[in-house]
C-alpha cells in the first residue's frame, strides 16, 4: 500500500538544494512516437501495416515481416506482471538518488512483453494497466499500474516522479482577474495544493474575482505581466516557493488584420500573451529550474493556457490567434530551455471560453470549471499537451490529419 505523502518539514537553510538530475534521455527517432503519445496521455505502440503485429520496443522495420509501414496506434494497455525486481543502487545518478526503484516485465493482452517501471501497489503476477508517462527527461516511459485504484496510489514515489501533481505543492496563478482564476484555485486546493498565490494587476481597479479568491484562502499579490519591474519584484519575493506556475494571463479582442484600423490591441495582445510569458519565464524560470529536485514540494510544472487557435488561425480573432501561435512557439523554446532541469511545460489548449469576448459566439464554450478540471487532470497525469473542450479536441485532430486542409477550412469563410 502506498504511504500517503505528508507535508514536508520546513527546509533546513543550512542544506544545499539538490541539483536536478535526469533519467536517460537518448531515444531513436522511431522511439519518440512513445513520447509524443505520452505528452497527450495516450498509450500507443507501433502496429505493422503489413502483417498487423503490435511491436515493442519501437523499431524502424517490423521484426516479423520487415515492413517499414509502422504506425503508432492506441493499444489496449492491459496486461499481467511477469517478473519484477527492485533496483537498490545504480550507476545512473537519477535512479541512484531515488532508489529503491521497481522495474519488471509485463505481458500485454495485445501481445508484446514490455520492460517497464512498476508501481509500488502492483503485486506479483497481478493484472496491470500500462501507463505511458513522460519521465523527468521528458521522454515516454511505461509504468505498470494496479488495474484498480488503490488508496493514495498517486503518492507512489515512482509515479509522482513522472507527474506534476499539485498535492502539497505551491502554485502561482498569474492573473487573478481572469474568469478562470477562482475555478483553477478551487480545483487545485481540492487536489491538495498547499498554497495558492494569485497575481493581481492594477489593484486600483475593482477585481470581480477578488472576493471568490479570498474566500478560498488564495493569497493575492501584485503582479502585472506587462510590467517587467512588477514581475521581477514578485519573483524576488516568492520565486523560490513556486512549484507550479499557471500562466492564465490573456488579452484578447475580436478582429483580424483589416477589421482593425491599427496595431494598438495587437500590441496589447502580444505584450500580455507573448512578452508577458517571456517576462514571467525570465523572472520565475531560473528559480523553478533550480528547484526541480527539492523534495516533496519541488518545482514541477510551467502551465500556459493557450487558445486552440494557436495551431491554426481563425480570422474572426486573427490577431489574437497570431499572439497565441507566438506564445505556443515561445513555450516550445521554454521546453528546450527548461529541459536540463526536468521542469515540465504544459500547454492547455482551449477553444472559445465562457467570457465577455466570446459572448457573441454560439456554444459549445468551455466553462471555467471545465477548463480547471482539464488543467488539473493534465498536471496529475504529467502531460505536456491538454486539449480542453470539444472545439480544442476537434481542432487538434484536424490539425494532425492535415494542417493545410484545416487552414483552408478555417480561412475560406462560412465554416461550420
Amino acid at each position, binding site marked *: 500500500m502506498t504511504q500517503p505523502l505528508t507535508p514536508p518539514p520546513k527546509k533546513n537553510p543550512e542544506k544545499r538544494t539538490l541539483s536536478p538530475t535526469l533519467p536517460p534521455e537518448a531515444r531513436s527517432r522511431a522511439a519518440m512516437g512513445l513520447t509524443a503519445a505520452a505528452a497527450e496521455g495516450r498509450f500507443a505502440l507501433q502496429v505493422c501495416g503489413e502483417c498487423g503485429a503490435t511491436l515493442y520496443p519501437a523499431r524502424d522495420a517490423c521484426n516479423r515481416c520487415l515492413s517499414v509501414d509502422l504506425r503508432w496506434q492506441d493499444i489496449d494497455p492491459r496486461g499481467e506482471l511477469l517478473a519484477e525486481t527492485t533496483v537498490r543502487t545504480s550507476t545512473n545518478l537519477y535512479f541512484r538518488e531515488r532508489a529503491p526503484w521497481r522495474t519488471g516485465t509485463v505481458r500485454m493482452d495485445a501481445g508484446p512483453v514490455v520492460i517497464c517501471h512498476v508501481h509500488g501497489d502492483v503485486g506479483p503476477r497481478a493484472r496491470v494497466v500500462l501507463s505511458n508517462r513522460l519521465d523527468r527527461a521528458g521522454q515516454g516511459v511505461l509504468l505498470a499500474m494496479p488495474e484498480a485504484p488503490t488508496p493514495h496510489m498517486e503518492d507512489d514515489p515512482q509515479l509522482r516522479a513522472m507527474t506534476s501533481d499539485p498535492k502539497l505543492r505551491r502554485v502561482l496563478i498569474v492573473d487573478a482577474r481572469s474568469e478562470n482564476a477562482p475555478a483553477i484555485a478551487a480545483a487545485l486546493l481540492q487536489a491538495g495544493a498547499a498554497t495558492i498565490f494569485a497575481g493581481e494587476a492594477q489593484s486600483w481597479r475593482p477585481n470581480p474575482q477578488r472576493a471568490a479568491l479570498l474566500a478560498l484562502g488564495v493569497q493575492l499579490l501584485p503582479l502585472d505581466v506587462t510590467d517587467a519591474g512588477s514581475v521581477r519584484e514578485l519573483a524576488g519575493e516568492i520565486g523560490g516557493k513556486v512549484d507550479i506556475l499557471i500562466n492564465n494571463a490573456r488579452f484578447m479582442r475580436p478582429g483580424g488584420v483589416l477589421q482593425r484600423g491599427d496595431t494598438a490591441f495587437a500590441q*496589447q495582445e502580444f505584450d500580455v500573451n507573448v512578452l508577458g510569458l517571456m517576462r514571467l519565464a525570465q523572472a520565475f524560470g531560473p528559480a523553478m529550474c533550480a528547484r526541480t529536485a527539492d523534495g516533496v514540494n519541488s518545482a514541477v510544472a510551467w502551465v500556459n493556457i493557450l487558445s486552440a487557435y494557436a495551431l491554426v488561425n481563425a480570422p474572426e480573432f486573427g490577431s489574437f490567434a497570431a499572439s497565441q501561435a507566438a506564445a505556443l512557439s515561445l513555450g516550445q523554446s521554454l521546453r528546450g530551455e527548461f529541459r536540463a532541469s526536468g521542469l515540465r511545460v504544459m500547454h492547455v489548449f482551449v477553444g472559445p471560453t465562457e467570457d465577455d469576448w466570446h459572448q457573441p459566439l454560439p456554444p459549445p464554450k468551455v466553462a471555467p470549471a471545465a477548463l480547471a478540471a482539464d488543467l488539473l487532470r493534465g498536471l496529475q497525469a504529467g502531460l505536456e499537451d491538454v486539449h480542453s473542450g470539444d472545439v480544442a479536441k476537434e481542432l487538434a485532430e484536424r490539425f494532425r490529419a492535415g494542417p493545410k486542409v484545416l487552414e483552408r477550412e478555417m480561412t475560406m469563410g462560412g465554416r461550420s
Partner: protein
Amino acid sequence: MSALAELSQALASGAVRVVDLTHTLDPDFPVIVLPPEFGQCAPFRMEEISAYDHRGPAWKWNNFSMGEHTGTHFDAPKHWISGRDLPNGAVDEIDPSVFVGPVVVIDCSEGAAQNDDYELTPDVIAAWEAEHGRIPADAWVLLRSDWSKRSGAAYLNLRDDGPHSPGPTPEAIRLLVEDRGIRGFGTETIGTDAGQGGHYTPPYPAHFTLHGAGKYGLQCLRNLDQLPPTGAVLLAAPLKIKGGTGSPLRVMALIEG
C-alpha cells in the same frame, strides 16, 4: 534690476519658491478606464536597455512607453472632437508663451471630502470671486479637491456605474471659458471632467467646452494645497510631440513667500 534678475534673486533667496505639482511616473499609477471595446490609454512602462552590464558596460538607461494622457498630463485642443479643426491645436503647435502664466486655485477640498461627486458650479465660483476677486482673463484655473492624496482604488473610485470624482458642471466651465476667458483648467483627478461627467449635456463638458474654445487642460496634479488662491505662476510645458493631442509633463508653480 531687470525683472528676470529680480526673479532669479528671489528664487535664490527663497522669496519665490518652486512647488512641484507632478505625480511620479509609476507603472502603478492609474490611467483612465474606458469601456474595453474602445482603445485604451497605455500606462507607464519602463524596460531596461542596459545597466552597467553585458548589454552596455558603463551605462544604464531605459526605454519607456506610455500614452499621451498618462500620469500628470496636458490636454491640447485637438484631444477633443470639439477642437479637432482649430488652428494650433496640437502640442507642437501651441505658442510656448502659453506654458508660463498666472494661476488661481479654487479650493473645493471640503466639499469633495463630503461628496465624491462634488460639482464645481457657478455659485461656487461666485463665492470664490467674492473673496478673492474676479478670475483674471488668460489665467489657469485649478480645482483643488485633495484627490491627489487618495491612492489605490479610491483614486479612480470605480463603481458599477463608473468612476466617481469631482468636476465642473457644464454651466461652470462655460462661465470660466466664455465669460472669464481663462487659459486652461486643471484638476487633481484623472480628467478635467467629473467622474460621472459623461452624464452631463454636453457629455464631458470640460473637455468639450475647453478644447472647443482652444483652451487647455491639466490633470492628475498634486500639491495644490500648497498654492495660494491667487498670485502664483504656473509652468506647464508639454513635450513637443508632432501632432500630439497631449503630453505627460512636469508641472511646477512659482509661489511667493
